[in-house]
């Protein structure tokens, strides 16, 4: 996969995902370097595993479980992500977040 095709797909995915995250109250992380890295992983995952999966969650075998990890996976982890004010990999953060250093990964088991 050429650098150029990775970049082009990244842009396409980000445009589509923006449409989804906006009504859910999220925006792309203001840390551009992190967004760039995660999106690149997603483009590669899409080519290799068939979908732009979350790069920070181990992919289970069952389709039903895997599909809950396709980015943006916010609808399937709403309570968890709303409590963290970010999705697990922090590609997306709540719209009111400006200081991302305050964000922390907290497993769902600690929030239940």
């Amino acid at each position: 996969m050429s650098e150029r095709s990775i970049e082009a797909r990244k842009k396409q995915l980000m445009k589509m995902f923006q449409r989804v995250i906006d009504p859910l109250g999220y925006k792309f992380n203001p840390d551009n370097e992190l967004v760039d890295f995660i999106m690149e992983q997603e483009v590669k995952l899409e080519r290799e595993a068939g979908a732009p999966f979350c790069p920070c969650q181990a992919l289970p075998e069952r389709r039903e479980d895997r599909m809950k990890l396709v980015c943006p996976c916010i609808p399937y982890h709403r309570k968890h992500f709303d409590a963290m004010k970010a999705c697990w990999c922090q590609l997306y953060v709540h719209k009111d977040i400006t200081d991302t250093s305050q964000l922390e990964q907290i497993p769902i088991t600690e929030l239940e």
Partner: protein
Amino acid sequence: MAKIVMYTLSTCPWCKKAKTFFEENDITFESIDYDLEDKESQKEIITKMKELGGTTATPFVIIDDIVIVGYRPKEYAKALNLGDGSE
């Protein structure tokens, strides 16, 4: 010395940060990139993650018998008695 095993993904930036934390503190650890393992090992790993932590989110760090899911330097430091964990 604590035994540290970490389940990670080669695609996960927070896993890289977790590894860096242990490296910078000169702590030996074993890390297994789930996505680079074969299907059989993946099955075993995912079963273990669910059993121990109820999740398949990474980084998944096991320090002796303490499970810490996520990039959480303060929690790692606490489990290792390293002080406040600030970098």
